[in-house]
């Protein structure tokens, strides 16, 4: 089993793509059910964290800008770490992410964690 980082990103800039507070409230159960399902398979290595949309980016020469990057509208909204046999399984798990079906277009990046062993 390897560990895979699932990074959730969404467009936090475009006005019409923002979930309402009611949308946010309604999205809690599907997310919890999805993560609970991964945990029930004993494949959740870390329940990670959710992140606020705002952020800063520090660039060389003490340049600090308001993140996310100006060129892309997507910001990291959160992450979890799962255990999977291979990339295929991790990707299959990522496909279950309820954010993918949401009108505010969440996408999931899957990265294999380098193990120390």
């Amino acid at each position, binding site marked *: 089993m390897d560990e895979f980082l699932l990074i959730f990103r969404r467009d936090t800039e475009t006005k019409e793509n923002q979930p309402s507070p009611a949308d946010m409230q309604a999205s809690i159960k599907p997310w*919890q059910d999805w*993560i*609970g*399902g991964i*945990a*029930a*398979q*004993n494949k959740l290595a870390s329940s990670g964290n959710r992140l606020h949309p705002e952020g800063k980016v520090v660039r060389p020469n003490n340049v600090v800008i308001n993140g996310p990057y100006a060129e892309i509208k997507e910001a990291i909204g959160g992450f979890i770490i799962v255990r999977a046999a291979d990339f295929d399984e991790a990707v299959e798990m990522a496909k279950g992410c309820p954010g993918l079906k949401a009108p505010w277009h969440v996408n999931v990046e899957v990265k294999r964690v380098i193990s120390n062993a």
Partner: protein
Amino acid sequence: MKEKELLPHLFRTEYRKIVAVLCYLFGIEHIETAEDIVSDTFLSATELWSQKGIPDNPTGWLYTVAKNKTKNHLKHHSIFTQKLAVELKYGAADSEEIEIDLSSKSINDSQLAMIFTVCNPCISIESQIALALNLLCGFGIQEIADAFLTSKEVIYKRLNRAKEKLKAEKIKIEQPTATEIDERLDTVLTTLYLLFSEGYYSTSQNTVLRKDLCAEAMRLVYLLIENIDTNQPVVNALLSLMCFHASRFEARLNDKGEVILYEDQDTNLWNQELISKGEYFLEQASKGNYLSKYHLEAGIAYWHTQKEDTIQKWDGILQLYNRLLQIEYSPIAALNRTYALAKANGKEEAIIEAEKLALTDNHFYYSLLGNLYTGIDDIKAIQHFQTALKLAQSKTDKATIQRNIEKIML
């Protein structure tokens, strides 16, 4: 209370108190001396009370005799005394001056110190439980053997090894400091939780003994709540959980000591007083920011005290299991979570999730699949129940699975 009942009763309530105080006084090195003195005290009571009748204040009598026997022992074992004098917390070299404090405060302090001594991870969890039953609950070796479904010899050896280990590690019997409480409270709670489970889920047919184990575990948790330093939300959460579980004790076993499944239980037998207590301790537990697995389990147990099958109930249970599994995975929590998922979100979704669990050596897994497929694909349901039947060991489990198959066949 008649003499016949009084002495066993006092043995159960007072033996452990005097033992705790003497152990606290003597230190871990002399646990057996403490036990001998107290056993000897009860022996004297048995002999004298049958001849002269029960004294006016039986407990006071036991305390006085125990104190005198302790002083005598210290007098006649000068080597013991000399060695002990250095270690004795009271610092008195002369045995005549040693004060043996059997006030309720001293008893509680000593018992608290003993809980932290006994629940020490340097000895195995089985040994911790056996030692807790012996020293903190006043259970005899035979009773402990019955609870563990093993022989007296095994328990005797287990207790002795545990005591020797505590001595070798020089574990102190003392009031835990705030830091020690922070570091060790989790271990203590785990042991007390397992002590409770030993009674609640034991395969022993001895219902009285099983109830005793649960009651003792609850008493020890309550002892922690009575102490200001250990009265923490997590401790209240554990007691709440125990109250909710214990409220169903009468309803979940038939007169043969066999388990009656939740949905078949007579709710009139649920103990409302314990349910109210559970709610009270759950409220106490909700202070602070730390959400422990006991909080989540108490929440799940709370929902189970609500008999009515509502979506709110089952989604409540599902969400608590979702979080519990994120804190600590266990196969049984995974299976129960999937059952709640079926109740809250429907069987179709639950079947997909259930098949991912792949707990193929667990008969509960196949029973769950059988249950989920019932009414959707009865042939598959029966196949799963038959696999469960092959894997199940106990008679009760086999009978339950057999009933499920028959229900489909009807």
